[in-house]
């Protein structure tokens, strides 16, 4: 475990204070920021962090690289939305139903896939997610197939007779995302500093050695999977409610699974702040590409004339390029910074420490 200077409970003071300050700032943000677009970006970042932290528990800590986590995202989304839209079950129950369904499915998938190692596990996880996506496309009576499901109305959330929110603005989603994110961070932190966390990491580092040290691989992998699935499924449900529309090509896509992994890799696998950094880097960047902000900025800066062929190309095409850039980023990070930004820093500190000891 990373350890800086310790004080009482193994936490260093400065980072804790900064984190608390940041959390307070995030809670107060909607009061000071008018732009709904900014709120939108924050919500997407929150969801991305939650998905990243969720994946991290299984992939980063336990070393089981699933590139099929979209399956759990989609199952959460579809369960919640189907229950709400067709059975009129309120989403604050529906998301938990989504979690339950996703965990059960996860345990079944785990029992099949956890016997496999390394690349075979990756392949199996992709195959499973694809099975879900194609199934969702085909079970038209349940999921409406490729057309997807459009939400008509989210019922207002009441306590007694008092309406807390009617989900008409982005603000309630902002707070829901923030709270779940904080819970995810807290759970990850608790896991890190628990026997579970040690066992997960041992499995990641060397499965056979871990086995010989008294660790029941099946049990602990499934525990890690369950934690992972809970957060991924919650993110899926919230996404579905927020965006108001889901279909297999968005919530069950291989692209989504790859994005989740990328978020963790860029920031640093197996750390709490890795997914945060990854999300903070990828989400605004991808949005900026999508909405043509970057193209516009290049043109505005005078580097390229709007009327030139290149300028035209930028305006028309750059917004479609975000996946291309993901791909390039992925290649670059794997080649030059496979442990992500945080991992890179960690290595430098450890090397420095070794020099000091000699």
């Amino acid at each position, binding site marked *: 475990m990373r350890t800086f200077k310790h004080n009482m409970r193994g936490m260093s003071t400065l980072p804790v204070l900064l984190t608390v300050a940041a959390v307070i700032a995030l809670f107060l943000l909607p009061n000071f920021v008018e732009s709904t677009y900014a709120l939108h970006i924050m919500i997407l970042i929150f969801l991305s962090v939650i998905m990243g932290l969720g994946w991290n528990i299984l992939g980063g800590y336990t070393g089981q690289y699933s590139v099929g986590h979209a399956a759990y995202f989609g199952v959460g989304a579809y369960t919640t939305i189907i229950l709400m839209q067709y059975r009129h079950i309120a989403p604050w129950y529906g998301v938990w139903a989504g979690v339950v369904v996703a965990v059960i499915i996860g345990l079944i998938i785990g029992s099949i896939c956890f016997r496999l190692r390394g690349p075979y596990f990756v392949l199996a996880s992709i195959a499973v997610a694809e099975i879900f996506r194609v199934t969702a496309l085909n079970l038209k009576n349940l999921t409406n197939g490729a057309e997807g499901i459009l939400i008509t109305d989210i019922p207002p959330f009441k306590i007694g007779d008092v309406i807390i929110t009617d989900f008409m603005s982005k603000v309630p989603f902002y707070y829901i995302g923030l709270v779940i994110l904080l819970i995810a961070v807290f759970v990850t932190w608790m896991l890190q500093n628990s026997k579970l966390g040690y066992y997960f990491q*041992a499995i990641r580092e060397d499965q056979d*050695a871990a*086995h010989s040290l*008294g*660790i*029941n691989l099946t049990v602990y992998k499934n525990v890690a999977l369950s934690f992972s699935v809970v957060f991924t499924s919650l993110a899926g449900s919230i996404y579905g409610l927020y965006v108001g529309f889901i279909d297999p090509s968005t919530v069950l896509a291989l692209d989504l699974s790859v994005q989740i992994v990328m978020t963790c890799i860029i920031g640093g696998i*197996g750390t709490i702040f890795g997914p945060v950094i990854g999300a903070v880097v990828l989400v605004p960047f991808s949005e900026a590409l999508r909405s043509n902000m970057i193209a516009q900025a290049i043109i505005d800066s005078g580097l390229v004339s709007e009327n030139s062929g290149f300028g035209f190309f930028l305006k028309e095409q750059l917004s479609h390029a975000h996946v291309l850039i993901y791909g390039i980023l992925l290649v670059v990070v794997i080649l030059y910074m496979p442990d992500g930004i945080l991992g890179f820093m960690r290595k430098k500190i450890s090397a420095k420490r070794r020099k000091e000891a000699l």
Partner: protein
Amino acid sequence: MAILEIKHVSKFFGGLAANSDVSFEMVSGMIMGLIGPNGAGKTTLFNCITGYYPPSRGEILFDGHRMNGLNPDAVCKLGMARTWQKVRPLAKMSVVDNVMVGALCRTNSLKKARVAAMEKIQVVGLENRVKFLAGSLPIGERKKLEVARVLATQPKLLLLDEVMGGLNPAESEEIIQLILDIKNLGITQMVIEHDMKAIMRISDRIVVLNSGEKLAEGNPQEIVSNKAVVDAYLGGE
């Protein structure tokens, strides 16, 4: 009272008999040397004993428990632990965290695990390396780390697979001392080793394997003067 009984154990891989009708017993507190040329079946026997695969035939009894078919984690919890011929540090975890993983076999409290880990780290002499990442250690220290980690599981029986492999004489001497210290702690040990001088010094009894079969068993003097052993193994080396 026999702590370990190997009864007519055989292990087949396809048509190949890696172990063939091997039988011997170990008494609590002893050090048993397991020697033989490369490919004799020593590591295979370790793997059968510790649950990596079940023996094809025969029985393995530990403290009276039948061990055939138990998984490695169950074997560890019952009090048998092993080190690996090719060291397996948990590379991205620190030295103390590595040993704690072993200690967590016996406790759920991180605090207690840390205390137990620090104690074992002192036994093997890695106090200066506590916060180092295991992957950054040189081979000699990795071997010591593996011993500390396995000691933390509080084994009654410890199986050491070529723990001196790849070490220089000074490092080997430290390991020999460590093995003798472990004996003083009351832990029974089975040691696979190619370093004959070391085996002679530490072993109470020696079992010689050759081509999967038990060739001979006896105390060091008997083994050294056993013609068949000398022919098959010592002479050939």
